[in-house]
């Protein structure tokens, strides 16, 4: 922490890790495919998540074609539309964002940032990826099975999810549940690793309150995911039993296509409670890593310590804890016990306070900074705008009675895309521009990056900001066609067409980004080890990209917090975490 006097520390002997602790690959297969190196696993996670994410992106184009130009595209029917929205939502939330933030960034950054050689359980870490890949393949296979993927909506609410009025009732829903179960098994193996690594494998001097906020965000999100995913796991198993064995966990007596079904005695609301007990923490499982990463991007590129570090840490922990007692705000109009409304509205709006503190501290970090408007910083600024916008509309939907007219409308779609779609993606993209040099040793092209940022940020804002007003008007979500109504004016159809055109443009502009990633891998400018002149440990590795075991012979020793930027009296405007006080004194002496 800032208030620790360095003078008393006379040099700590560096810790040496005996060679036997690491698994050494002996062949190409164990080095690049069945690798136990967290850095390779991180790249595998990231590439797999991006690949399935691109599928979800294409699905969103198909949805927008239908919404913007209803009746024009005969190859999209009502059943397919529901399948598209379901798969788009599930892929984006779980298989892309969760996997990318925790499996991708978590694997790459945790060991490097805490000064470890690798994750604590490398073999389990490898298994985690392969089970995740299997989950993705099972999910993708639903596009090719009879009846296609499920069209139950990403929330998979029974009874309709497993009844014959919904597309994908045969195979789609069964494979979806199976894929989710696999994903959770895979995630649990990875997640236990991240938690134990952060708690047990930090290098000498790396106290918890010296951790970069990126690690705090990923760590807290992982703990939350380990507590939240089991709810989805049991819900998936029970729904699978209802579908396959005819049990009735979630199924009351009901009529299916005119016939009295064999079900009876179950509760559809029970599923919703289990789903959202997972589903709401899931929002923060995606958001907290983004919060952490963006803090480090802002601090590094504004050359200034993050403002209010301790408050930022406690805000992350408080948000993580509170997010477990707000889930029923997704169910205000579900028919649950009405008195719940008071409690869940209050807890939900209280979360706004630690969240607002984080926003204030991000913008206060900019105050009297030395702001380098490089691509990662631009994405961080884009994140703040979209996150503030999406967070504030959350105050509408969280405030129980305000939610009543707005729930199930396009307002909700606009809100959650802004807050947990666009905002985290801004951070993902900024983080890729930021850490790509460490992963590859080369810089991404700056001009292409700036073009990519402006098209993506302004485009995404133009898509989702006006969409709120469609919801305010009353346009319902998950509608294949709006049909004839007395309350939707023709101008709303024009707005829908506009949104679709922008969405397609933003989608296609990502080709520039993919090109940049591929081109820079071979032709990018060499970056050196620390191109952003950053303080955190991952930039201080002896090799770039970091070699197997990360640190050469000796582990780094940490002497200071992660945010010693522009320290008064120091010659450089950054002091790496592993720079001993005496070395800093020398620099100071040289400067004066």
């Amino acid at each position, binding site marked *: 922490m*800032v208030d620790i006097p360095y003078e008393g520390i006379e040099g700590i002997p560096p810790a040496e890790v005996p060679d036997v602790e690491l698994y050494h690959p002996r062949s190409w297969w164990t080095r690049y495919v069945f690798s136990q190196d967290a850095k390779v696993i991180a790249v595998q996670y990231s590439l797999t998540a991006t690949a399935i994410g691109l599928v979800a992106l294409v699905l969103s184009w198909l949805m927008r074609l239908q919404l913007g130009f209803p009746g024009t595209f005969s190859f999209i029917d*009502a059943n397919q539309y*529901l399948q598209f929205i379901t798969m788009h939502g599930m892929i984006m939330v779980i298989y892309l964002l969760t996997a990318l933030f925790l499996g991708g960034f978590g694997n790459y950054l945790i060991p490097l940032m805490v000064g470890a050689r690798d994750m604590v359980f490398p073999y389990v870490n490898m298994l985690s990826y392969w089970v995740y890949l299997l989950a993705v393949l099972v999910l993708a296979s639903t596009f090719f099975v009879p009846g296609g993927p499920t*069209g139950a*909506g990403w929330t998979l*609410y029974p*009874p309709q999810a497993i*009844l014959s*009025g*919904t597309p994908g009732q045969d195979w789609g829903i069964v494979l979806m549940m199976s894929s989710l179960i696999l994903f959770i098994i895979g995630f649990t193996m990875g997640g236990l690793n991240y938690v134990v690594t952060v708690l047990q494998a930090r290098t000498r001097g790396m106290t918890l309150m010296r951790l970069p906020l990126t690690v705090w965000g990923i760590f807290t999100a992982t703990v939350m995911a380990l507590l939240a995913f089991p709810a989805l796991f049991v819900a998936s198993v029970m729904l699978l039993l209802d579908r396959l064995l005819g049990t009735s966990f979630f199924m009351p*007596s*009901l*009529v*299916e296509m005119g016939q009295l079904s064999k079900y009876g005695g179950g509760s*559809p609301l029970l599923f919703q409670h289990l789903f959202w007990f997972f589903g709401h923490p899931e929002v923060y499982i995606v958001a907290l890593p983004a919060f952490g990463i963006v803090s480090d991007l802002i601090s590094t590129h504004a050359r*200034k*310590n993050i*403002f*209010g570090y301790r408050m930022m840490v406690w805000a992350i922990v408080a948000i993580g804890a509170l997010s477990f007692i707000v889930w029923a705000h997704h169910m205000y*109009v579900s*028919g649950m016990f009405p008195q719940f409304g008071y409690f869940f509205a*209050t807890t939900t*709006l209280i979360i706004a306070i630690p969240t*607002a*503190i984080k926003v*204030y*501290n991000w913008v*206060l970090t900019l*105050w*009297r*900074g*030395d*702001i380098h*408007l490089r691509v990662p910083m631009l994405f961080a*600024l884009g994140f*703040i*705008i979209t996150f503030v916008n999406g967070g*504030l509309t959350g105050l509408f939907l969280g*405030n*129980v*009675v*305000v939610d*009543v*007219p*707005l729930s*199930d409308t396009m307002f909700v779609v606009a809100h959650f895309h802004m807050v947990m779609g666009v905002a985290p993606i801004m951070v993902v993209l900024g983080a890729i521009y930021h850490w790509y040099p460490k992963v590859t040793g080369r810089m991404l092209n700056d001009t292409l990056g700036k073009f990519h940022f402006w098209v993506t940020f302004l485009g995404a*804002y133009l898509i989702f900001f*006006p969409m709120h*007003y469609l919801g305010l*008007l*009353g346009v*319902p979500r*998950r509608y*294949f*066609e709006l*049909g004839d109504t007395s*309350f939707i*004016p023709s101008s709303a159809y024009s707005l829908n067409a506009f949104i679709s055109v922008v969405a397609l443009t933003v989608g296609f502009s990502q080709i520039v980004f993919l090109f940049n990633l591929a081109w820079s891998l071979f032709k990018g400018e060499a970056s050196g080890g620390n191109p952003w002149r950053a303080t955190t440990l991952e930039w201080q590795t002896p090799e770039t990209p970091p070699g197997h075991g990360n640190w050469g012979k000796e582990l780094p020793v940490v002497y200071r917090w992660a945010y010693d930027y*522009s320290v008064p009296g120091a010659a450089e*405007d950054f002091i790496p975490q592993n720079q001993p006080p005496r070395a800093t004194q020398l620099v100071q002496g040289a400067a004066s």
Partner: protein
Amino acid sequence: MAVALILLLVAIGSVLFHIYSPWWWTPIATNWAYIDHTINITFWITGFVFVAVIAFMAYCVFRFHHKEGRRADYNPENKRLEWWLSVGTGVGVAAMLAPGLVVWHQFVTVPADATEVEVMGQQWQWSFRLPGKDGRLGTSDVRNIAPDNPMGLNRDDAHAQDDVVIENGDLHLQVGKPVKVLLRSVDVLHDFYVPEFRAKMDMVPGMVTYFWITPIRTGTFDVLCAELCGAAHYQMRAKVIVDEEREYHAWLEQQKTFAELSPARAVVKATYQSGGK
């Protein structure tokens, strides 16, 4: 400084869009103007915060972007400032939450003089039921559903016999009379949604849910399903017509009761009972 200007324009553009865009909520048709007021309060508070945060950020980018020789301040924390910002946020949150909870209390407290109507959802159509002369709805169960008893009313319940059953028709309500809308589904989740009413609630098989409204103006309003209910979710439509008292009663006179709609079954049942002796 282009970046700062664009950031500022995003905030200003959003406010202008809010003021001048033609898309706004539908003219309200019930007593729930309180909900609209609460939304307006929320818009004012959140709009202020949105503009303030982005304007501050844009100013920082304008004023403190990198120039040769600039060096950032070293300013780890400021407890006083952080406390004041937290308290201010708390006040803003309370200003939105308090009216919200008060209106929610009204929303879940049904007035004693509210009459009951029932809306039943099934894939993919609406049915309606009004209490007959006795003023009470009879009991129902999905296991009673048959071609001549699509709403599954209980034939042994005397209160059910005079219930007015409307299948594939429109619902009429009387202006100025509070009504408790009981909601029921026989297959999957549905949601009875009339944008002009503001109120909505899911319909869950195995449960009876409700909301209450007092219609304040006459007119014809679209009923949509707001909870995904399968392939033809988007086609699940009906209309609600709010009438003056006279027109309402004229319409009510023309509707059939449960006993009138399926009298044949009553005869069969009587025969069965006598034959069993």
